[in-house]
């Protein structure tokens, strides 16, 4: 594994076995402006919201036996993966997946009691707080070399 365990090394992208494919994606990510990165995060949160819609629709479909909710579930399945794919053009896949799964879990746990016979226990609420803390932390940590490029004349 090309372990890059030194935080903020000068050229983190130089360590990977870059194919043409990933070199292209890397340069796109490396040159991402704060604007572009901000938009990517919005799309990623949208993907999480679609994931919640998918989870609720699957719940409503009762094992894909109710046709209307099954159709809604398929639409949300396509939407969430599309939005995830758009966001991952800019955001690293490890961070993107965690945020996607995290927002989906928070939304499903928060809305479950609204739509279904679920309860939001104190334990669940505490875990939601842990997830949200991690999500905010990741948002703040996800600015690779941007301060450098921004301050460069």
């Amino acid at each position, binding site marked *: *594994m*090309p*372990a*890059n*365990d*030194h*935080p*903020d*090394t000068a050229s*983190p*992208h130089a*360590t*990977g*076995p*870059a194919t043409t*494919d*990933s070199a292209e*994606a*890397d340069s796109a*990510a490396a040159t991402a402006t704060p604007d572009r990165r901000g938009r990517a995060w919005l799309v990623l949160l949208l993907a999480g919201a679609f994931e919640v819609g998918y989870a609720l629709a699957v719940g409503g479909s009762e094992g894909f036996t109710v046709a209307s909710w099954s159709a809604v579930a398929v639409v949300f*399945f*396509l939407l969430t*993966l*599309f939005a*995830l*794919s*758009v966001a*991952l*053009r800019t955001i*690293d*896949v*490890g*961070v*993107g*997946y*965690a*945020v996607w*799964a*995290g927002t989906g*879990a928070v939304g499903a*746990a928060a809305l479950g009691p609204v739509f279904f016979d679920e309860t939001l*226990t104190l*334990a*669940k609420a505490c*875990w*939601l707080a*842990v*997830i949200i*803390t*991690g*999500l905010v*932390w*990741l948002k703040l*940590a*996800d600015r*690779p070399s941007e301060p450098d490029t921004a301050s460069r004349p």
Partner: protein
Amino acid sequence: MHWLFLAVAVVFEVAVALSASRAQGFTRPGWTVATLLSGGIATYFLSLALLTFDVGVGYAVWTSAAGVGIVVLGSVLFGQSWNVRKLLGIAVVIVGVAGLQLSGAA
């Protein structure tokens, strides 16, 4: 057998994230098809595994294993950088998701 189903579900969940990343916003047809197929296969095998596993435990193992696999493979295959801050954030989110699913089961 249920551990095998869960392992297959993890492998394809990792494949979902990696191919979604390669699909570049669904502009590449091959990777787009790979994303959707992997998503379907992962969901199917997860549902098979959850017939035997406790739902909360099964989900918790599935999400955390996939999260770790995606960080490792994103680094190995795509050369994406990672540092202590990012890893810590990912770990907190994954632990939170796993804890949520386990507490839902309890």
